[in-house]
């Protein structure tokens, strides 16, 4: 299969590309990328002539051409924080449906969290996920292993063996490591394998019983609050432990102003720490749960306007280098119940692009800066070859119609999880084609 994408506006932060050009794909790999009206171009100058020759005559007819005029071409997005729910919770999502949702949303690499059943705390589970993904996945699936066995925070999981089997990072997401000594050990031990430790920062003793942000709304709705400090305390603890150990720390889903400040401070001190936020943390405030809509229940909880502004500043100045979805699909029946009993999480893969592009409209980020946070930066943190249009890399490409306006309707999600607080939102910017390892999907 040979594919030629012509005259699209190509943006690839990994090569500093921002201009109109063509991409030629053969054998599932990017063979050639040529950008016209900018200085930046790839080293493939000589090959260009050659392939032009090859493309003459009969062979030219085998080439599928995508006219990308008026469209924007990005490296397929990399989501370093998703929950695919398989094994164990296939009624919420499977590797097949989750990766289909991914490519529909423009993502071609997803890193799945280990809180499955069984927990991905052992190479055998990693192996299962890798095999399932190879058989049924629509895109690259890179598992994140558990830090501790059973995510119980007591014994280290076999980080080395799991890395060997395919895990690229380690996290007890959803069940934060409360014991500081255990977290210290994880940050120390993981250095031997040069893998990041991803921390879901929540002091469980402080957040206990909480179901939304603590503030006037939690008081007037009779919902127990989670103070911002529950996140900040652990962000600061982990930053200090990262400094102590020299381990690679990544802070998951930053939701508060204070956390942004702490990460900024840590970076200034030269501590090895990176951070992500999710579209809902810069798009929605705690007001979204006022009417007890469990689709807006998420952990960490939606915060305030002030936090949103701080997160935007953090994105702008590079304190937060990644936008991840924390895609957390749940069954409709689980969400349609008592607010305090409903599980936390938002099905995020299919709204992430539209919501994130608003940051460009609002001039928080330039388009290349945004794409960097969805491609190059997560790839760098995870140490993977993805999120680039480099010659020779997998043909993971998303072609987006930036002007396409649409209304979010969860019924149309490819994900099994229809749990979104964005239902009915008018967004702009949708993938029209996704190439995942060279396979073309048209939406």
């Amino acid at each position, binding site marked *: 299969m040979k594919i030629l994408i012509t005259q699209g506006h190509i943006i690839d932060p990994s090569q500093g590309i921002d201009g109109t050009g063509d991409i030629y794909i053969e054998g599932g790999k990017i063979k050639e990328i040529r950008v016209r009206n900018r200085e930046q171009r790839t080293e493939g100058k000589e090959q260009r002539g050659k392939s032009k020759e090859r493309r003459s005559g009969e062979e030219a007819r085998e080439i599928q051409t995508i006219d990308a005029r008026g469209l924007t071409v990005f490296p397929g997005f990399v989501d370093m924080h998703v929950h695919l729910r398989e094994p164990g919770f296939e009624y919420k999502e499977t590797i097949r449906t989750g990766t289909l949702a991914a490519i529909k949303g423009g993502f071609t690499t997803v890193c799945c969290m280990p809180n499955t059943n069984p927990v991905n705390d052992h190479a055998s589970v990693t192996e299962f996920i890798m095999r399932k993904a190879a058989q049924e996945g629509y895109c690259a699936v890179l598992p994140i292993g558990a830090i501790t066995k059973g995510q119980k925070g007591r014994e280290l999981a076999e980080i080395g063996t799991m890395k060997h089997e395919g895990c690229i990072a380690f996290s007890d997401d959803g069940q934060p490591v409360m014991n500081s000594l255990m977290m210290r050990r994880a940050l120390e031990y993981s250095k031997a394998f040069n893998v990041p430790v991803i921390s879901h920062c929540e002091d469980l003793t402080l957040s206990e019983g909480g179901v939304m942000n603590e*503030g*006037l709304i939690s*008081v*007037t*709705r*009779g919902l127990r609050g989670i103070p911002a400090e529950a996140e900040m305390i652990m962000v600061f603890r982990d930053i200090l432990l990262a400094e102590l150990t020299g381990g690679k720390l990544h802070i998951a889903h930053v939701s508060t102003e204070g956390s942004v400040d702490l990460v900024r401070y840590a970076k200034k001190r030269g501590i090895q720490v990176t951070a992500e936020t999710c579209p809902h943390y810069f798009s929605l405030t705690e007001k979204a749960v006022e009417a007890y809509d469990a689709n807006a229940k998420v952990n960490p909880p939606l915060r305030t306007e002030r936090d949103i502004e701080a997160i935007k500043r953090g994105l702008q100045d590079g304190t937060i280098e990644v936008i991840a979805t924390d895609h957390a699909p749940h069954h409709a029946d689980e969400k349609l*119940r008592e607010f*305090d009993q409903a599980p936390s999480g938002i099905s995020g893969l299919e709204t992430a692009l539209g919501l994130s592009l608003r940051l460009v409209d609002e001039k928080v980020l330039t388009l290349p800066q945004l794409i960097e946070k969805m491609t190059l930066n997560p790839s760098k943190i995870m140490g993977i070859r993805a999120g680039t249009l480099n010659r020779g890399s997998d043909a993971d490409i998303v072609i987006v119609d930036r002007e396409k306006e649409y209304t979010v309707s969860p019924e149309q999600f490819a994900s099994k999880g229809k749990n979104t607080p964005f239902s009915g939102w008018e967004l702009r910017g949708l993938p029209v084609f996704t190439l995942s390892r060279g396979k073309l999907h048209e939406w």
Partner: protein
Amino acid sequence: MLNKKDLLGIKELSAEEITLILDTAGGFRDVLGRDIKKVPTLRGKTTVNLFFEPSTRTRTSFELAAKRLSTDVINFSVPTSSVVKGESLIDTALTVQALGADFIIIRHSSSGVPHLLAKKLRASVINAGDGINEHPTQALLDAFTIREKKGTIKGLHIAIVGDIAHSRVAKSNIYSLIKLGARVRLIGPPTLIPAEIADMNVKVFHKIEEGLKGADVLMTLRIQMERQDKGFFPSTEEYSKNWGLTPDRVALAKEDAIVMHPGPMNRGIEIVSEIADGPRSVILEQVTNGIAVRMAVMYLLSGYRR
């Protein structure tokens, strides 16, 4: 008529709507004083008490209110544990509606359940207490009682003592009393009064003596023993020493101040018997007024046309 399908909370009501309910309750209160305490107003309608949390007092009050309006009444008690095991909340509510319920009175330990069910049900939903959110009919009966005793609520100094953070009664009372123009004081240990509540046009006191000074109405709340285990206060002894209603403290209020308690009381903890049974206490009148207020709510909701 209210032109509302449901009564979910005082938050959702205007001062005019609250006043309408209180005025209507006045009429029903007279009925309750008669020999024959029943009116045919809602004959043919069905009321279901759907209680996910046990409460004999509130359920009985609603049951009597419904019967005095001539509706048929079914009590449907669902221990929360069985809901967790099997049928979902929504299924249970839809089943009750399918039995022909026109009014569904809901009590649940989770905040927002009446709101969630009201959206799914054709029947009128009345919140009989949801989690730590609201208990609107309690606040209405309290307002009714205060108005009856004091003539008006506007301008009164009303002190609420106790666990404001976890009390749906306190929340509903705060909303209603503020809307009706009272000056509300909240008294209790800082662990039991959320800091954010100060944004709501109330005055917070941690010393009960300061809070009670010159008050027209003293309302004290039932203290939940389990709060002690969670570190909200060290012991019930210390709580009652600092925040219990005693004769000395009550003497600081206005001479004609009334004392209220939503019940059931922990005698000797948040209130001593001399006060609970004393001349200022209107605690038993609150109970009687509860029926009248609940009748008024049901009657006013029955006029709703979608």
